[in-house]
């Protein structure tokens, strides 16, 4: 008697996941603890290990397909077992496989506000959407006869442009021939290998730019079309896109910039480092932000426009840029930590972010975020508020800048910080005071002597 493998539920808010790759193929032996497939949620890519032993007899959901949690994705048993119909529900519901603690890569700036807790866990598999949904948006599958489809493929054209005249508007061979005639296909000049490549890759040769006079569409033209073909964004980028668009279009942002004189702090930190200390300039900035947030509750809150929710502690998000996109690990209860504890926690989180081993819970619940581009040589920039927060601080590079002190021009190390605030909660004066409060802390050496 075999076992259904179901799509595991990997977090309170995860409703569906995409299978990224199958690590095991149909017919392959599986031992308990083997990684059988990788899934991608809106938060992370995770490996799923098997609780069962046996042979992977059938895969129901292919790589690239997205299905709701608890839907059967594969069947494990002994060769010869009858493979049950996945839509009939999983026999013997068992606890879902759990992901390993080290996902290969992770994602997403920050979580959306949590929806109210849903009724959970032991509920029966939801099969309202039993058909796996392709993540690549394929248009409604058109009814087409096998002969017509073969002709469409051979000619490397797009059936979507063809009007069907068969029963229930099915496309038949005659429709394709008529389309070829009206679209003047036989006047198209294209090399044989280019047609073959286009046919194989699903490129419509009629949609390619016409070749210059006297020339033909060549393999290189089809290759160019292939390179230019829209690519599905990675799940991670889709999430980033959705969240940032939501934030930027629904949150009225405004920006306040102040210049911080870092000259003394840099000297202090240089000395600290020379004595074996581990604090980086970023640690001072983060600590300043945490201290100030306690005095400015509006910036440690969030609103949906109707109510406001204040966070009693500071859960500090730290934006970390990776090749695949941005992740924002969260130092929870940063407001309750000493500077040394915060330093250690942030170092740990950033390290995990870089090696892709952040857990989903370590990427949610932030109340305010700091984005530091100081190492990227920028004069100034503005950041987009993570959904669920009311502010984000953009930290730019420190530069030698002429400053006026006591009427004298002198060179100082100036760092610009720009606060983005949600104007629904934060007024201009509040934002200005908050930004200047951070500046004051960073310029106050007495403060650091007591904190370090």
């Amino acid at each position: 008697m075999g076992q259904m493998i179901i799509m595991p539920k990997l977090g309170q808010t995860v409703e569906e996941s995409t299978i990224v790759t199958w690590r095991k193929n149909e017919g392959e032996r599986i031992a308990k603890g083997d990684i059988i497939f990788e899934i991608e949620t809106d938060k992370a890519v995770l490996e799923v290990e098997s609780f069962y032993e046996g042979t992977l007899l059938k895969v129901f959901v292919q790589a690239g397909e997205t299905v709701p949690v608890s839907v059967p994705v594969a069947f494990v048993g002994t060769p010869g077992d009858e493979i049950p119909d996945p839509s009939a529900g999983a026999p013997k519901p068992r606890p879902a496989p759990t992901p390993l603690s080290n996902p290969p890569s992770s994602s997403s700036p920050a979580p959306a506000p949590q929806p109210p807790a849903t009724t959970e866990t032991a509920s029966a598999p939801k099969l309202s959407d039993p058909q796996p949904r392709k993540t690549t948006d394929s248009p409604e599958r058109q009814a087409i006869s096998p002969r017509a489809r073969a002709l469409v493929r051979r000619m490397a054209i797009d059936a979507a442009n063809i009007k069907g005249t068969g029963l229930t508007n099915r496309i038949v061979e005659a429709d394709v021939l008529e389309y070829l005639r009206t679209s003047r296909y036989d006047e198209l000049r294209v090399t044989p290998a280019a047609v073959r490549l286009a046919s194989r890759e699903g490129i419509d040769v009629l949609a390619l730019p016409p070749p210059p006079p006297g020339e033909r569409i060549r393999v290189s033209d089809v290759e160019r079309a292939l390179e230019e073909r829209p690519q599905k964004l990675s799940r991670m980028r889709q999430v980033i896109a959705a969240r940032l668009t939501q934030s930027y279009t629904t949150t009225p942002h405004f920006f306040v910039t102040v210049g911080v004189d870092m000259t003394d702090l840099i000297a202090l930190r240089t000395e600290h480092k020379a004595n074996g200390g581990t604090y980086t300039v970023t640690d001072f900035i983060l600590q300043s932000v945490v201290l100030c947030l306690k005095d400015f509750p509006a910036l440690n809150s969030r609103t949906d426009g109707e109510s406001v929710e204040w966070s009693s502690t500071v859960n500090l998000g730290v934006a970390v840029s990776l090749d695949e996109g941005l992740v924002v690990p969260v130092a929870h209860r940063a407001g309750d930590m000493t500077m040394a504890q915060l330093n250690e926690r942030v170092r740990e989180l950033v390290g995990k972010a870089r090696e892709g081993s952040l857990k989903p819970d370590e990427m949610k619940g932030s109340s305010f975020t700091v984005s530091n581009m100081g190492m990227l040589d920028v004069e100034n920039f503005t950041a987009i508020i993570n959904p669920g927060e009311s502010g984000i601080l953009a930290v730019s590079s420190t530069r030698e800048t002429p400053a006026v002190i006591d009427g004298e021009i002198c060179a100082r190390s100036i760092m610009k910080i720009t606060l983005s605030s949600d104007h629904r909660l934060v007024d201009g004066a509040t934002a200005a005071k908050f930004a200047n409060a951070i500046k004051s802390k960073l310029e106050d050496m007495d403060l650091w002597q007591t904190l370090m």
Partner: protein
Amino acid sequence: MANFDVVIVGAGPGGYPAAIRAAQLGASVALIEKEAAGGTCLNWGCIPSKTLIATAEAYHRLRAIPGLHSCSPTLDYAALVEHKNGVVKKLQSGVQQLLKANGVRSISGTASFTSRNRLAVTGSETIEAGHTILATGCTSLVPSFLPAHERIVDSRAFLDRVDLPKRLIILGGGIIGCEFACMAANLGAEVTIVEMLDDILLTLDPEIRATLRDHMEKAIGITVMTGAPLDEVSANNSCVQGNVGDKTIEGDLLIVAVGRAPATGKLGLEHAGIATDESGFITVDDFGMTSAATVYAIGDVNGRTQLAHAATSQGITVAENIVRKERTRMETLIPAAVFTSPEIGVVGLTEEEAAATGIDVLTGKFAFAGLGKAIAVGETVGFVKWVADKATDRLLGAHVIGAHATDLIAEAAVAIRSELTLEEIGRTVHSHPTLSEAWMEAAHAAHGTAIHAPPSRGK
């Protein structure tokens, strides 16, 4: 000061067609040449060597033609060389007439840049050039460990000789070395090739190489020594000697064919700001332009493809780009013809090269031994081979060894440049009985549908 729209340096197979095309398009053109019109190809390369090779082939074949008895021709090498000189002279004067008829001003002398747009010419006035095309070609590389002696010659000096030595050592198993070796062996000389690398003609398809080497060694008696250098070379009045590994070899003449070096020495490239690569070849972009915007370089001197027809194609493209202000890339699909015994034709990628680019390679091969015409004319050595992309059936390369291979490769070049597929070649009717049918059969063979070959096992 004389002023021309286009000045071309070097009247070889790259330079003179460039001059004619530029003149046809209405430009005022000067062509500077220090020696003879036609360059290495016409005077000391392709043409004279092929004249000798044609006779050598015939001489060899006459001894074994079915139905011909007591056919024992005698070789008069001096008469052959005289004939060769006549061929060269005839073609030379043809080129000169063409240049004249097209209004190209031919200038005799050696050119060197004084600035980007100005060239000093020995024995002539300084010339002002709107654009310059450098087509100076290359010369034989003679390694410095070889003593200077009349028994040690390069290919050019060999072609000027009026006698064929009895025992010949050829240093270098490249195209020139192998062609000369086959020619001399077919004429009865005792030939030894010494190649330092692991095999002769290493850039060719391994099966082609193996077939050629086998024929050279067994059928025409050439000694092929590979994998060890020739050293301790000495020459005296009676012979030339050298060591290969622990063997000593001796001959009457040593032909040096180890490679070619660009002929840029007298051009004064530095006065025009023209960059060269580490081997001294002039660096050009895909349009033939050097690092100096008004100066182009074509043919051997740009180091892309050392073949006469590549130079011609580049010369015409560059002339058009200059005069018509176009931007057409120089052709990159260059067929190669190797006049060994048997002949070899190659165009496009080898199986190994295609696989190295990640292509799933499909090949189709057909041996001349399975072809009626080849059997009828007694030319059953060799085969043709297609290299294609399995995914799209697109032709990527073609390789042929056997009689008339250098002519047979032309069809493959057209097919590959036209981006045809194996299927298209298979459907193209090839006239019977001809050797060209082998291409069609090999295309079918790739798909396992050859008529004149047994089905391959495992399909």
